């Protein structure tokens, strides 16, 4: 039996998503019978609760062209989307870093010396 498939189905259900949303608002709301010593299954379930919560939020905000409800409900497509999103964000981050470097270089141009020339971030 593949418990991961079951766990993901549970985690994205409106029932558990509602409980998870409520638990974020009401700190004292308990998700499980046990308070600690969570099983690996429970930890994995908490991970997927957070992932699906985020995906539903991004879906409602129409943040991504390729994200719709069918993607969230299909484990294979959802894995693919999560990987693509990770890659996309890494690329954005690298682009920002590159831009930051270029900006730092501009400040360091000789002949235009001012107090702004100090590279506070220590970038190369």
């Amino acid at each position, binding site marked *: 039996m593949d418990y991961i498939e079951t766990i993901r189905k*549970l985690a994205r*259900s409106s029932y558990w998503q509602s409980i998870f949303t409520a638990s974020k608002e009401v700190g004292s709301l308990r998700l499980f019978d046990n308070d600690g010593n969570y099983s690996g299954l429970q930890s*994995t379930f908490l991970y997927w609760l957070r992932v699906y919560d985020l995906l539903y939020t991004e879906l409602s905000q129409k943040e991504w062209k390729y994200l719709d409800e069918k993607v969230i409900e299909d484990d294979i497509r959802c894995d693919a989307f999560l990987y693509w999103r990770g890659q996309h964000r890494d690329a954005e981050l690298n682009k920002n870093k590159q831009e930051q470097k270029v900006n730092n270089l501009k400040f360091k141009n000789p002949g235009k010396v001012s107090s702004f020339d100090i590279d506070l971030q220590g970038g190369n």
Partner: protein
Amino acid sequence: MENKEQQLLTDSIRDLEMNDFSNGIVQDNKLVFIAADKTYRVRMPIQSEQALVDNKKNIAQLDYLKQEGCITRKQLIQQLKNVGVFDVDKVEEAREQLTKELKQMWLILATKSSDNKMSIEECSAKIIKIQNELKNIAIEVATQLAPSLESRLEKFTIEYLTLLCTDSQLDGKWVRVWETMEDFQKEDSSLTERACANVTWLLLNKRA
């Protein structure tokens, strides 16, 4: 009631009606299963049980090291390669290649619109095929390396945890199934293997 709340409530009721949520697998830190018409459960070990298992594992390690033919994972990998039975390095290369292919397929699938049903099915089928190949590699490596000291200790740990943390239901009460390792080893393997599998699931990603 606002529309959004109404929709949420309707969805929740629909889910409750249509799905078996199998909440049991996450509701607490236990897993219940039925074998030969009897109800069993495995549970997470408490600290003292975990300490006992660690101690028993250390003793087992010393015991295994004294045994003839005891071989570490590293030594076994080299030996299997030398006699031409199994090349872990080559298998690892194949695994890396498959992982690259899987990531490429994910990138292709992620940018498909939901209307493109045919293309999605095609990509999904390829992904399932790659994932199955990766699973088979993992099983093959685990099988080949099973005689190693590390694998034997891993097996011992799971079995000892199973011995401590498996209960059966008798007259509405949970009672421990096996008192000693000897009792556990005498048991029908279909029950012990099932209990071990459930303990492994319960500990998912929890063990170093």
